[in-house]
């Protein structure tokens, strides 16, 4: 923990994450208006009432930007949690039990690893009649777990034959008990790093799908803001902040997750630790 907080990248990542967390939490207080209020003249420029102007639907852009933090944090964290659960089964459990179970699960992992997940996402989104943030979050989770599962599997294999794991097995503990009681605590750092990696993937993929118009275009998210900004040619009409800021928020939140992913790995992975 001390090593984590003395890591500059970790602190920077955490600071950005906490910032967006507070914005999302206090969105009703921070935002000047409801993000779905459409009582304004569309495409107003920057003014005292509307610091960032209004969009083609007549929403206040600043309010949309503030509330957008909620969507991205929700998708990023929820998808990362589900991805981590899948990885525990497909990676840690698979690597620990070995044998034909591992053979089957590892082959499935390899298949998911090779198919480009964004393409798969677009295909699935194309067939779905109704899309919501939660549906997108779930299909993101189902397509984005393979790389981490492979990393965790090789970790689990290397831990499998260590004496303390052997001992707990000898004392008659069940498979899942060994996995959760002994294997998982010993790879906690890598699990956390993977969690942030998954969150980064989810935030980018969600925004990307929505930018292409494949999400629910009526929800208030940064990806949808960019979709509308591009469709309305906002930048040609002088509303360049409408295009600039949602993307910058995605980049910053993604960078926060990426920094945490990298920094936790530096602290937790003995091969990367500074002696």
């Amino acid at each position, binding site marked *: 923990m001390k090593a984590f907080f003395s890591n500059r990248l970790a602190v920077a990542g955490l600071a950005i994450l906490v910032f967006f967390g507070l914005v999302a939490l206090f969105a009703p207080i921070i935002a000047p208006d409801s993000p779905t209020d459409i009582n304004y003249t569309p495409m107003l420029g920057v003014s005292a009432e509307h610091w960032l102007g209004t969009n083609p639907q007549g929403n206040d852009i600043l309010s949309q930007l503030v509330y957008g933090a909620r969507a991205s944090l929700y998708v990023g964290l929820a998808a990362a949690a589900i991805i981590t659960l899948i990885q525990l089964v497909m990676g840690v459990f698979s690597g620990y039990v070995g044998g034909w179970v591992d053979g089957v699960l590892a*082959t499935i992992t390899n298949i998911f690893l090779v198919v*480009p997940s*964004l*393409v798969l996402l677009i295909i699935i989104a194309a067939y779905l009649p109704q899309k919501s943030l939660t549906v997108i979050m779930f299909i993101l989770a189902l397509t984005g777990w393979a790389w981490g599962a492979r990393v965790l599997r090789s970790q689990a294999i290397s831990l499998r034959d260590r004496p303390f794991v052997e001992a707990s097995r000898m004392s008659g503990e069940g498979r899942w008990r060994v996995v959760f009681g002994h294997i998982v605590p010993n790879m906690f750092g890598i699990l956390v790093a993977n969690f942030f990696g998954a969150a980064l993937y989810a935030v980018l993929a969600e925004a990307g799908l929505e930018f292409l118009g494949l999400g629910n275009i009526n929800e208030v998210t940064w990806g949808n803001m*960019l979709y509308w900004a591009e469709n309305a040619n906002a930048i040609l009409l002088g509303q360049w902040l409408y295009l*600039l800021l949602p993307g910058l928020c*995605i980049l910053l939140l993604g960078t926060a997750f990426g920094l945490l992913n990298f920094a936790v790995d530096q602290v937790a992975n003995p091969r990367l630790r500074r002696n």
Partner: protein
Amino acid sequence: MLWLFRRFLVLLLTGWAALTLNFILPRLMPGNPIEAMLARYQGKLSPQAVGALEIQFGLNTHESKIAQYFTYLGHTVTGNLGTSISYFPTKVSSIIGSSLPWTLGLVGFAVVVAFIVGTAIGAAAGFRRGSRFDSIAVPFGVMLSAMPVFWISLLALYFLAFRLGWFPVAGGIGGTQSISISGIGSIINHAALPAITLTVVSIGTWILLMRNSTVSVLGEDYIKFGRAKGLPERVVAYRYAARNAILPQFTAFALAIGFVVAGAIFTEYVFSYPGIAYYLLEAVLSLDYPLIQGIFLVIVVAVLIANFLADILYVFLDPRIRLEGRS
């Protein structure tokens, strides 16, 4: 060689899984997307075309699902991907044939150049861990890997192509040019901005992977031994460290190429580049399911081939796999 054969089997299995997914998805999805598609194109398609689509997607047919599946497999393996609806009556295979070269050029360039540049930066950062260069390269790499490609492409399109006029704003070739030797200048001119954007955003992953890989290799005993022998740092860096640190780059290839392909979808969309991803999105927006299926399959197969090429290269680079036959 046994290792390579096993990799080949996994890739073959992946190809089959993609085929099967193509078959299952339209039949599994709620709200019957195929009927929605047929309803949308009602009156625009001939009864024969509707009949062909019904057979392709298993509507109003007495054939069992299993029989449909084998008919579908047979058609696909023989290269029959059906007819596009939004570009009716053009065959899906001819749309793919004319758009694939554009994407292969774009993605191929980005994969190769990003790999070389990213690996070089990552190796330099890892080797000088904790230096000023390292402390700039790492956050830079993280930021690039968190870059929303569509957003940076839009900004590049607006500022570099539209405002400054350094690059063309759309398309793959000038309107008056033909795809020939004389048109090559125009092709490169149009490809430059999408290719540069895609390459730059793809560098981040390679930097971070190579940097960490180099750091962990530097902790190995043979590096200490090399230094203890009094070898010059340069020899230790290139012949001892870099040669071993580069190996994980190849195992991460599947991940990285997925990243580049995802990036290519956005760059082709934003720059209206006439590649396969551009047609994929067009097909998605116009509910052209035969075209969606065909393009998905071709992308998966192309990625499989790229992965297999990386595997072959890996076998050449890592004698342990060549000699022991296992990883």
